[in-house]
């Protein structure tokens, strides 16, 4: 099976090895064609964004205005803060030049003179590694003013690294742009979309690291080659990061549409102690969790996962075995979103806190069946009522976990609640409601 993003070539991160393996030829080929040609090839290849929304990359590029007097920018999103995702760091470490080449082609296609690669602040090591690769590329004339001589074109572009400082929300494209502008990472109201009003009000495209790294092979080998890999509606390979209760956690590059059970049992070596799987979150902690007894036949691509009631997200698969305390997991997820909510929108700022409080109450053994409905109600009131998708991301895991594991959660609140039987109001001893409430 062919690997596109992380091929098995030793020392590929070195510029000489990358060049010896056909590196920086795709960009040369691209410069021989018109930007519109490039966009149309990427569109036809079916390449979809790998950052979570799985939006068509070529279509996104085509939104950039053709006639404008303003500067145009490209932002590469390497914020990678979604719990369960650890794929972009592999690209920075093992194949940085393909990312750089992808940036050059993308910049040419959309007409951007400047690219900011936004890398999360915790990734000191990977920032260093990528900066080393970038400086080698500059010295060899592949980036910057040297491009004019190297490729014999008028086009040239610069690439800068912008280091984040620990804010999950900056992975949201408009928050990311605010962060680059030196502001707090507050998401912006859309529309206007980045292609109209992005960095400093100029047309901007934001793409994920993995998406951009897929571009050079599409140009060199042809869009029709790429479109044939994996599932037709979401072609190419995907970097699946699998973690949690598996024997061999790690990043696996596999064609889209790989069976989830194949990924868990064949590639990641199954569950330690041959335990049963209780729950799988297939695309990073924001995505709706799936029941362990309903994994058969689920394919890992955007359309199939949507049909299965979840989403591909960043391809970060988290596996939980039968002994996992799901309430604890869900409370931890809720804590994450409570911590990371930027605080602009009331439903998200307040709602995430309430989700956490209710889940902690259940965790302490003080929950009631009503709390489960309350969780779903709070989640429903966050979802869709916020500027950015963090609200949805906070609501989905709670809503779907409680809905899909209703039996598990009911067992939990019944088992540990101090006043066990609900709806027997005539007996003050046997009620699920706190006595103080009933007296009123």
């Amino acid at each position, binding site marked *: 099976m062919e690997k596109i993003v992380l091929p098995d070539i030793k020392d590929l991160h070195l510029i000489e090895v990358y060049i010896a393996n056909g590196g920086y030829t795709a960009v040369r080929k691209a410069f021989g064609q018109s930007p519109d040609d490039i966009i149309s090839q990427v569109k036809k290849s079916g390449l979809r964004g790998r950052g979570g929304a799985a939006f068509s990359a070529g279509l996104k590029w085509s939104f950039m205005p053709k006639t404008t007097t303003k*500067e145009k920018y490209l932002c590469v999103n390497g914020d*990678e*803060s*979604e*719990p*369960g*995702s*650890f794929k*972009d*760091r592999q690209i920075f470490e093992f194949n940085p030049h393909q990312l750089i080449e992808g940036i050059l082609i993308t910049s040419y296609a959309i007409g951007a003179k400047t690219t900011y690669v936004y890398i*999360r*602040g*915790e*990734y*000191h*090591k990977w920032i260093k590694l990528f900066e080393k690769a970038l400086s080698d590329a500059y010295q060899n004339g592949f980036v910057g003013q040297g491009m004019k001589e190297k490729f014999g074109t008028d086009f040239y572009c610069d690439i*800068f690294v*912008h*280091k*984040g*400082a*620990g*804010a*999950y929300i900056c992975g949201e494209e408009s928050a990311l742009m605010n*962060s*680059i*502008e*030196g*502001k*707090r*990472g507050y998401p912006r109201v859309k529309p206007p979309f980045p292609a109209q009003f992005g960095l*400093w009000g100029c047309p901007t495209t934001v793409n994920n690291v993995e998406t951009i790294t897929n571009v050079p092979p599409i140009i060199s080998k042809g869009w029709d080659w790429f479109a044939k890999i994996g599932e037709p509606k979401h072609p190419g390979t995907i970097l699946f*990061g*699998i*973690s*949690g*209760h598996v024997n061999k*956690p*790690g*990043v696996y590059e596999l064609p889209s549409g790989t069976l989830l059970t194949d990924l868990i049992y064949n590639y990641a070596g199954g569950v330690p102690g041959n335990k049963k799987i209780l729950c799988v*979150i297939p695309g990073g*902690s924001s995505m709706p969790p799936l029941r362990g007894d309903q994994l058969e036949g689920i394919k890992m691509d955007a359309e199939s996962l949507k049909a299965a009631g979840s989403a591909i997200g960043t391809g*970060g698969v*988290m596996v*939980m075995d039968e002994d*996992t305390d799901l309430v*604890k*997991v869900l409370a*931890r*997820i809720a804590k*994450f979103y409570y*911590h*990371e909510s*930027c605080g602009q929108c009331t439903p998200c700022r307040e709602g995430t806190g309430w989700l956490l409080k209710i889940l902690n109450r259940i965790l302490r053994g003080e929950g009631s069946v009503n709390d489960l409905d309350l969780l779903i109600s709070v989640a429903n009131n966050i979802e869709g009522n916020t500027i950015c998708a963090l609200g949805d991301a906070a609501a989905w895991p709670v809503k779907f976990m409680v809905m899909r594991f209703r039996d598990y959660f009911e067992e939990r609140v019944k088992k540990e609640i101090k006043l066990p039987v609900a709806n027997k109001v005539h007996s003050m001893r046997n009620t699920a409601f706190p006595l103080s409430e009933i007296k009123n």
Partner: protein
Amino acid sequence: MQFKFTQENLDKVNDVIKRYPDKQAAIMPVLWIAQAQNRWISNEVMQEVAKVLGINPEEVLGVVTFYTMYHQKPMGKYHLQVCTNVSCMLRGAYNIYENVKKNLGIENMQVTADQKFSLEEVECMGSCGTAPMIAVNEDYYENLSVDKVNKLLEDLKKSI
């Protein structure tokens, strides 16, 4: 305490400013340079950053308080960041976190009396495939166990 950039860092600051069309955009990288020099972002540092960039100190304050990685108080020489998010938690991160607390006798966001260690419970660090993990300042230590963590802490305690 008065804060001034060293000449070397001032050169870095001027270099960074050139990457952006306006000076405000350089706040984050300049704060990183300041934190590397001063170890934490004091009011004086914010004043100086604002002065160097020609912007209001309030703008700098807004950024410093939004992003968790800018320290608003002096942290230890070894700032231990323990990830307890789901993937790490499933592989025993809370054991490690509690163990570090017990070993050093400090709670979240506290510093040991000798200023050598500080502890922070952090969100996902992107080490899910090599969980559980601790970051010591900028370096990741991955695939940990309680024993390995104790060994790591002993080594750090011995170092100067």
